[in-house]
C-alpha cells in the first residue's frame, strides 16, 4: 500500500467517524441543558418570569430580590412584560394598592407606561407585603391590601349615605349622536387660576387654560348597582378622560371621588333624532366637570 492509499483510507474513516460523532452529539444525545438561566426561557415563559417577579414584589416589597431575579433578563423584555402587566391590572380593575406597588417598582427599574401616572401621583408610598390569604377556590378574588382600600367597590349602594355637595361643577353636558353603544364620556379638569394683575409687558402672554386632571375617581350609580372609573387611563384621548357604558331606561347619577357626592342625577340614555325610515340611534353623553383651582 502506498502513501496515497494509506491517506485515503485514514481520511475516509475520519470523515465517516466525524459524521457519526456529530449525529450522536447533536441528534442522539445532545447537550442537555438543565442549569439554565431565565434569559434562555422561551419568550412566553420569560414574560411570565418578569410578571411573577413583579407579583413577588407586591408581597414582599424586596427590591434587591427583584433586581437579582431580573438581572439575567434583557431590559426590553422586562419593560414590555412590566408595561403589559400594569396595563392589564389597570384594565381589570385590580386593587389600586397592588397597581400602585407595581407602578412604584416599575418606576424604580426604569419602566414607564401611561397607566402608571395615576398611581404614582399619590402621596402615600406603596405598602407591599400585607396581603391576606386568598380564598383557595376563587379564580380571581378581590384582594384587599390594606384595612381601608383606596377604591372600595361596594356590591350594592342602596341605601346610599347622605349626599353631600361636590366641589366639582358641570361645565357642559352635550348629547353626541356619533357611534354606539351609548356611553357617558367625562372630562375632568381644573379651572385656570384667577389671572393675577399683570404688567403691560406680560399682557401678550396667553392666559392659562383648564388643566386636565388624571387620577380622579368617578362613580356611576344606578338603582341596585354602581361602576367606577379613573381618569387618565386613556391619555391619548385626554389625561382627564374616562367613560362608562350606559344601558337604556336606567337612571344614573355621576359622582366624583365618592359615590355619595353626585354632580349629575337622573341621567338617562337619549335617542338621537334620525332621518325618516331609519332606526333611531342612542346618543352618548359628553360631560365636562371642573373644580376650582386650589390655592
Amino acid at each position, binding site marked *: 500500500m502506498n502513501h496515497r492509499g494509506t491517506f485515503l483510507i485514514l481520511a475516509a474513516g475520519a*470523515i*465517516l467517524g466525524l459524521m457519526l*460523532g456529530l449525529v450522536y452529539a447533536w441528534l442522539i444525545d445532545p447537550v442537555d*441543558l438543565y442549569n439554565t*438561566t431565565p434569559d434562555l426561557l422561551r419568550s412566553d415563559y420569560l414574560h411570565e418570569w418578569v410578571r*411573577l417577579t413583579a407579583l413577588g414584589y407586591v408581597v414582599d416589597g424586596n427590591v434587591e430580590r427583584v433586581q437579582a431575579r431580573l438581572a439575567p433578563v434583557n431590559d426590553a423584555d422586562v419593560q414590555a412584560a412590566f408595561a403589559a402587566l400594569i396595563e392589564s391590572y389597570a384594565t381589570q380593575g385590580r386593587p389600586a394598592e397592588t397597581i400602585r406597588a407595581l407602578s412604584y417598582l416599575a418606576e424604580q427599574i426604569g419602566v414607564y407606561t401611561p397607566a402608571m401616572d395615576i398611581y404614582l401621583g399619590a402621596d402615600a408610598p406603596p405598602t407591599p*407585603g400585607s396581603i391576606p390569604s386568598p380564598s383557595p377556590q376563587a379564580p380571581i378574588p378581590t384582594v384587599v391590601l390594606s384595612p381601608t382600600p383606596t377604591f372600595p367597590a361596594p356590591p350594592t349602594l342602596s341605601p346610599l349615605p347622605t349626599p353631600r355637595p361636590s366641589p366639582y361643577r358641570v361645565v357642559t353636558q352635550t348629547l353626541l349622536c356619533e357611534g354606539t353603544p351609548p356611553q357617558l364620556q367625562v372630562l375632568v379638569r381644573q379651572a385656570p387660576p384667577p389671572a393675577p394683575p399683570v404688567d403691560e409687558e406680560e399682557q401678550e402672554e396667553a392666559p392659562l387654560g383648564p388643566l386636565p386632571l388624571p387620577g380622579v375617581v368617578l362613580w356611576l350609580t344606578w338603582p341596585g348597582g354602581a361602576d367606577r372609573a379613573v381618569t387618565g387611563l386613556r391619555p391619548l384621548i385626554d389625561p382627564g378622560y374616562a367613560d362608562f357604558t350606559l344601558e337604556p331606561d336606567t337612571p344614573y347619577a355621576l359622582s366624583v371621588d365618592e359615590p355619595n357626592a353626585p354632580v349629575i342625577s337622573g341621567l338617562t340614555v337619549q335617542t338621537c333624532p334620525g332621518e325618516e325610515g331609519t332606526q333611531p340611534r342612542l346618543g352618548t353623553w359628553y360631560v365636562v366637570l371642573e373644580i376650582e383651582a386650589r390655592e
Partner: protein
Amino acid sequence: MRKAVLLALMGLALGVGAGLLIGWQLWPVSYTNTAPHQLRQDYHDDYVLMVAAAYQVEGNLNAATDRLSLLDPETPGRPVIDLAERLIAADGGEQDIRLLAHLAQALGVTSPTLAPYTDAAP
C-alpha cells in the same frame, strides 16, 4: 489488508472524537427556548416562590397549578413542598415558608412539617 482495516478504524476513531468534540464542546446545540423545569436550582426555587406569591396576590389556583405543572406535570404540588421543607431545614425566611405552605395547602399536598405555617396568613 489488515493494515488497511486498522487505518480505517483509526480514522473512524479520530473522526468520532472530533465529532463529539465539536458537537458537545465547541459547537453544541444552542438552546434558547428553554422551559422553567430546566432552570438552575436557585432560579428554580425562585420560580416556585414567585408562583406562591402570585397566588397570594391573584388568588388564582388554576394559574398556580398550570405554572407548577411546568416543573412537575404529575404532582404540581411536589416542588412547593420540597422547597418549603428545604427552607424550614435551612432556617429560611418565615414569610416565604408561609407563602409556600398556604399554596401547598390550597393544592392539597401539605405535610405535617408545614402545618405550623398554615395557621395564619403570611
